[in-house]
């Protein structure tokens, strides 16, 4: 069993997502940085798809009521276990009564905490992940709070595991996001497309403080619509990573909490770079770089193969 002492800015239970219900409006709500999420399960000897904690901000703190192995991935943190510093991205042994604290997050934004046991929480609609907006999934459909107790079964004592630093992407700004053309790219003037993608195929924006787990708002050059074109579309299915342009011209990157959208979609963040969306903090600079779909496919397939090899349980 573990006990939450401080749940930082926000801590929720996540997994690889709730799929198969977008026809009734249920979004994926998956971990935002899937590589870090998969890595934390690997480091703690869990199967892919097991629940883990996604959190951001300093001050996260918890107590272990029994011996187990844990790991922290995602953003790089200054963490201590019983006041002794530990390293992110490797498995750590905690004793019965140990207290773990995250004092500072120094690179990246969201971090993932996993444990070497089966978390005793129920699936809702086939997934452990939390739908915060509608209050279901995870732990009673809400963020973790002080005093929460989470029980485990099948606690294992696995061998030490770590991920080589070379395999971990930089999470520091400026963030370069490769993007591919969206369904409504024709709604925008050539000038506007040049502005968002830049003359040399690059352009920069800043992450707005109005961003949250539903979407990331960017601030910078407003993207102009062609004259006379409708500024919205008939609402239809949208995918995570889509860049929408609302009437004010400021791009919004859709995350994993919406199934339908009614704004024009100028582009999509390439899947190879979507994990980085978990690490976009207010005021961070974002550079958008246009690539074509063939390149995006190749990059995504390559990344998936690398992850699969890296996180092989052998």
């Amino acid at each position, binding site marked *: 069993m573990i006990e939450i002492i401080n749940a930082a800015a926000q801590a929720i239970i996540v997994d690889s997502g709730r799929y198969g219900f*977008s026809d*009734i*409006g249920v979004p994926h709500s998956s971990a935002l940085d899937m590589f870090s999420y998969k890595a934390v399960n690997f480091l703690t000897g869990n199967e892919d798809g097991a629940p883990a904690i996604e959190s951001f901000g300093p001050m996260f703190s918890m107590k272990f009521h029994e011996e187990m192995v844990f790991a922290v991935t995602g953003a790089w943190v200054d963490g201590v276990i019983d006041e002794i510093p530990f390293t992110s991205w490797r498995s750590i042994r905690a004793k019965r009564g140990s207290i773990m604290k995250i004092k500072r997050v120094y690179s990246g934004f969201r971090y993932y905490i996993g444990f070497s046991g089966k978390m005793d929480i129920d699936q809702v609609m086939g997934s452990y992940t939390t739908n915060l907006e*509608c209050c279901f999934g995870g732990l009673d459909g809400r963020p973790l709070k002080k005093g929460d107790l989470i029980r485990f079964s099948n606690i294992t004592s696995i061998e030490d595991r770590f991920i080589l630093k070379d395999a971990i992407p930089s999470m520091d700004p400026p963030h370069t996001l490769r993007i591919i053309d969206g*369904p409504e790219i024709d709604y925008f003037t050539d000038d506007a497309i040049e502005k968002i993608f830049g003359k040399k195929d690059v352009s920069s924006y800043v992450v707005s403080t109005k961003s949250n787990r539903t979407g990331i708002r960017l601030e910078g050059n407003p993207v102009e619509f062609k004259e006379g074109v409708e500024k919205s579309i008939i609402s239809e*299915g949208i995918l995570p990573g*889509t860049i929408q342009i609302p009437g004010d011209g400021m791009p919004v990157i859709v995350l994993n909490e919406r*199934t339908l959208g009614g704004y024009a979609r100028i582009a999509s963040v390439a899947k190879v770079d979507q994990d980085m969306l978990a690490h976009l903090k207010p005021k961070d600079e974002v550079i958008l770089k246009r690539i074509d779909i063939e390149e995006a496919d190749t990059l995504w397939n390559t990344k998936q193969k690398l992850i699969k090899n890296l996180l092989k349980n052998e």
Partner: protein
Amino acid sequence: MECLRYGECGIRIIFGHTIDQDINNRVINFYRSLKSKCIAGVIDITPSFNTCLIEFDSTTIDFKSLIDIIKGIDFCAAYPKDLASKVIEIPVRYGNEYGPDMEFVSQWTGLSFEEIIRIHTSTVYTVYTIGFIPGFPYLGTLDKRLFVPRLKTPRTSVPAGSVGLAQLQTGIYPFESPGGWQIIGRTDMVLFDYKKPPYSILQNGDKVRFIPV
């Protein structure tokens, strides 16, 4: 039927370019038929007014193979053209604290409260699509006399069960959530229950009528 790629792992099937009962019937036919095929690698299907989005897992199936499978299926034959099923009745308390925008709707349309209620309850609506949040039905087509714009500034919080109007649509908020529709009433009916399949009381293509209480 036009098939367009969207992102690395999405296909948009486009059936038309307007909000229209016939176009939506074709979307729903396609969606029900595709869903029943349980194609490996198809991880989510999102039907809407005039399109259907298919999300696939590229480690299981690639874009070209999936397009070939989709094009090889005779969707039109799969279901009868008329999707009409039973009409689901939704009891609504109109006006007062349940419908804070009734006054605005009355002023905008020039109709009395009674006329608004009579017109709103006299149409059998179709669930054109469900989403943005779980179980939120986009119902159409609203009588033209009730056409109202969305709120200029959306509310940060709309109570669960609120019945709203926006342009030629009417809808119901299953959860307390932010919202920009003009709220004219509220229902006690639970529209979404994550504990019990099929979770959403209303399904795509269902028929709905509001009953004043």
